[in-house]
């Protein structure tokens, strides 16, 4: 193999998630609509981690992070979740903690996932404004409203 491995090739090498790879944003199902990119041809695949049965269940973390998807050279982590109260925020933070551990210690360490992780809120709460957005930010999660506009957020984050 020459050059850098593609997202699909990286995933294929990780037994826990190898079976979960989907082309484009297919792993996100109807939530693929909350991801906006300038060039859909540059989408390199996606995984619905929370439903990936190859990953062992954990008592400490009953819920796992939702999705990873690759766009151009980057792998992005996105959670699509309600944000109407403190419990929802705790859920998202706990899921992010699981993802961080998994990426450091387990199968995920072969993936180089971009930091920060992204949070897309379902429902009508504006998580960019106020303490919910601030709480997520302090845990390394960037709230991007109801849509993750990748180019726009990359600009904000200066990637």
């Amino acid at each position, binding site marked *: 193999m020459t050059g850098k491995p593609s997202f699909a090739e990286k995933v294929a090498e990780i037994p826990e998630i190898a079976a979960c790879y989907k082309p484009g944003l297919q792993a996100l199902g109807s939530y693929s609509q909350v991801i906006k990119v300038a060039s859909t041809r540059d989408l390199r695949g996606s995984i619905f981690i929370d439903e990936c049965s190859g990953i062992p269940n954990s008592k400490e973390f009953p819920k796992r992070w939702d999705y990873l998807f690759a766009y151009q050279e980057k792998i992005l982590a996105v959670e699509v979740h309600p944000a109407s109260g403190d419990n929802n925020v705790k859920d998202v933070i706990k899921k992010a903690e699981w993802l961080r551990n998994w990426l450091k210690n387990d199968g995920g360490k072969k993936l180089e996932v971009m930091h920060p992780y992204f949070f897309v809120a379902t429902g009508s*709460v504006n998580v960019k404004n106020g*303490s*919910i957005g601030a709480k997520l930010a302090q845990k390394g999660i960037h709230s991007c409203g109801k849509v993750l506009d990748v180019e726009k957020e990359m600009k904000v984050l200066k990637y």
Partner: protein
Amino acid sequence: MSEEKQKLILENFGPIKKAEVEFGDLTVLVGPQATGKSVFLQMYKWQYDAQLILSYYTSNGRFVWPENLMQMFRLYFGKAAETLLSDFSKVNNEQIHLAVDSKEGISVAVENVVYVPANRDQIFFNNYPRDSNYDFPITEPYVLRSISGLMNHFLFTRFNNLGLLSTLNRDNKFWGSNPIYYNDEPFIKVENQQRKLALKIQKKEIVYNDWSTGQKAYLPIAATLDLMKSWNWETNPAKEKIIVIEEPELGLHPKAIQEFLLQIFSMLKLGFRVVLSTHSDLILETMWVLNQIGTNNNDFTVLEHLFQTDNRPEFKEIFSSLTGKSFKTYYFYKEKDGDGSLSKDISSLDVFSEDPEISNWGGFMNFKDRANAVVALVNQDS
């Protein structure tokens, strides 16, 4: 710099029951109206400058040396002094003493603590700053008199005989272009033989009284920062280099507040300590960011993202210089209605703190959260 003065404890003084602040390189006080922030900050200046202030009055020749505490504080706080003192007033756990006459009048334009008060627009009369020696009755606070003196000094030393802001010694980086005065610069317009401060906006000469509120309120700040940057500290009798600014955000758009903060960062790099009182959530949000950077990776150059300074390369170095600086935020509040006010260190601004005053940033978050909740309620079917 004397370390003991970096802490001030004030008890039973005006609206304050007990307030305690340990000052950092950048310190911000927040809190509702009439909780004593201004009185507290003026006493912070008093710690450093009492002797200089009283010497000023001695050398002025029109005032007599105070014989009791009330007279002493009348010279400093103006009429407000009558409501401040009680038998239980204490500074740093000690009764307040009457200052001893130094018998030497030292005249200084820049004191240890340069103080820009919130009511700074009151130093102007007929489009020009009042004379600090003669135009202020004893009923007005000293900090107003002293900023007027500084403003006059700025006009005297920074404007050439054509009435234009001199290109020498001035802070070109600020005056060249900024979101407060744009490319316009203040100049001195002579009208009926009277000097008046003016701006040329779209070829029209606009005198000070007709400027926007923000432009008016910012001028003493711009002048102070400009003067401080190029001041000859070697020969200045007062050397502490501390700047206190009350409510810098008065009348300013968020973009202009960002520019102000950039100016403050450059003062920190030059070794100044800065103290602000504010009601601006942009300033508080910046304190949160500074604290988070300080407690995480310490790479302050990430502020380039926040302040969008890509085309201003000098700020990379300025941001880097913030490493190791201390950023403090204090909340002044009344425990319950009618009680004297207290202070609390909320510097972490940690939104996960179990102390609601810290996690709500001294009340700044509550409205935002309620706004979210109300918007969610009205959108329940969408």
